[in-house]
């Protein structure tokens, strides 16, 4: 056998070896062949039925699971609700799958007849955007409230992503309404600039930005700067620093302007974003603590915070417009 023949024989032997590995046959003592056979076995475990006519895993292999189930569920829910409320003709109901018909019949018995109108029943079965708060509910949803509870008891407590968008829209609307000279104006003005200006007159706006920035936590004037999660100036110049202490009553404290600017029942107001904090407009020419149109009552001010506020009281003239800082003043003037 020549070297060429030897080489050809080896090539043919390797070809046969690979065919044997692919067929799952014994590979002998060859370590490379054993490794390749292990790979084939591992792939077989992960993706069996390599040459079969059906996809592995009952057809789910390689597919993202359950993509269609959500929309399908909503469709089913609407069908059941409409059928249960009598909104479908007998012929249309008859075309529904039998389990759906049975379920619709059961739901129809559970729901009071007064649930009545099909549209209301649908809106009850599929919680509407903004329906997280039952007090926001319209008359229609109240009428169908029994049905809503029967179909989805926890519907009011579910956070729907759409609510966030709705809130954002409502929030902007409230701001625009309040920008005409109410207490929200300063907050609105502050938010119109995301970063503090280098203008010394506007340094006081930093506090309003912090307090009114959507990501800022609820703050309380009684909190000391030491507890602030935000960067401080590191001195006693009275730079206001929002603090991390949430204060549920804060909304009412500071909301003398903001809350009043919000029309009652117009929108779910978020105290974090609507409240302007007294004593947080900082120092400088814009004036620090007593900047609230309605000054904070002494009872709400802890002695420590009061002392801190007094000690940081600058020589600047407190702004007569309360929370309305330079930003707010500019902005409200613009709106006027």
């Amino acid at each position, binding site marked *: 056998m020549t070297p060429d023949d030897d080489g050809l024989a*080896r090539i043919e032997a*390797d*070809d046969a070896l*690979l065919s044997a590995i692919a067929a799952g046959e014994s590979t002998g003592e060859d370590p*490379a062949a054993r490794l390749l056979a292990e790979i*084939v076995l591992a792939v077989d475990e992960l993706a069996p039925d390599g040459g079969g006519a059906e996809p592995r*895993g009952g057809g789910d292999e390689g597919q993202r699971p359950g993509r269609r189930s959500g929309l399908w569920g909503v469709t089913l829910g609407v069908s059941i609700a409409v059928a249960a409320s009598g909104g479908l003709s007998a012929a249309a109901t008859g075309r529904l799958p039998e389990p759906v018909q049975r379920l619709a019949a059961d739901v129809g018995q559970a729901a009071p007849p007064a649930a009545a109108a099909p549209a209301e029943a649908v809106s009850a079965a599929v919680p509407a955007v903004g329906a997280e708060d039952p007090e926001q509910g319209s008359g229609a949803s109240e009428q169908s409230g029994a049905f809503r509870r029967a179909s989805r008891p926890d519907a009011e407590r579910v956070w729907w992503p759409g609510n966030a968008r709705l809130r954002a829209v409502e929030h902007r609307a409230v701001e625009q309404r309040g920008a005409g000279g109410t207490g929200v104006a300063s907050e609105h003005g502050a938010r119109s600039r995301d970063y503090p200006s280098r203008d010394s007159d506007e340094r006081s706006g930093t506090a309003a930005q912090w307090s009114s920035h959507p990501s800022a936590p609820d703050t309380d004037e009684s909190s000391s700067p030491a507890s602030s999660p935000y960067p401080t100036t590191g001195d006693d110049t009275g730079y206001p620093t929002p603090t991390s202490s949430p204060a549920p009553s804060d909304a009412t404290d500071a909301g003398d302007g903001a809350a009043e600017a919000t029309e009652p029942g117009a929108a779910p107001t978020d105290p974090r974003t609507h409240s302007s904090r007294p004593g947080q407009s900082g120092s400088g020419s814009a004036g620090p603590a007593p900047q609230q149109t309605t000054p904070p009552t002494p009872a709400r001010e802890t002695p420590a915070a009061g002392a801190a506020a007094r000690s940081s009281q600058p020589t600047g003239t407190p702004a007569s417009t309360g929370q309305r800082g330079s930003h707010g003043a500019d902005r409200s003037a613009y709106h006027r």
Partner: protein
Amino acid sequence: MRQGDGGDELSGLVARAQAGDPAAVGDVIRRVRPRIFRYAMARIGAREEAEDVTQETCVALTEALPRFDGDASRFTSFVFGIASNKVLMSQRSRGRRPEVAVADVPDVSSAAPGPLERAERDDALRGLLARLDGLPDRHRDVLLLRIVADLSAEQVGEALGTTAANVRVIQHRALSTLRAGITGRTDDTTEGV
């Protein structure tokens, strides 16, 4: 397809699919998809990426079906030629935009292996595939097309645009490299002991 794979049936299906029969297109995809996934899994080692490659291959295959001209054997080569290209594209794009797949939360119960078990199996496969890292990419591709996709040397040649003889030479060299690497590793281990 190789012997016993129902090549005649596949030829008929492909002909119907090319004629525009949607059911036949579905049948063709159902037939080749598992093998594409196996191959992609062996090449990539990451389930999510292999699924993406499989899907992209199937889409490309559906679009390219009208242009295919040949029998069932050539069709398999045609399919894995597309798959091989998709794997390469995926690896290139992965280099450009590294991504980390997160597990989907299944909406339905499943009898399939749980996430932990799947992760363990994936790790085991990756560990084995790592031992092929010393091979040139083309050599690795040839070996995996031969043993995982179960293609013949001729089919691999068609898929990769080369001859069967060249494929045989490549696989021989790949095996020699593997043997040398494993033996060297074993020797190193023995010397270490």
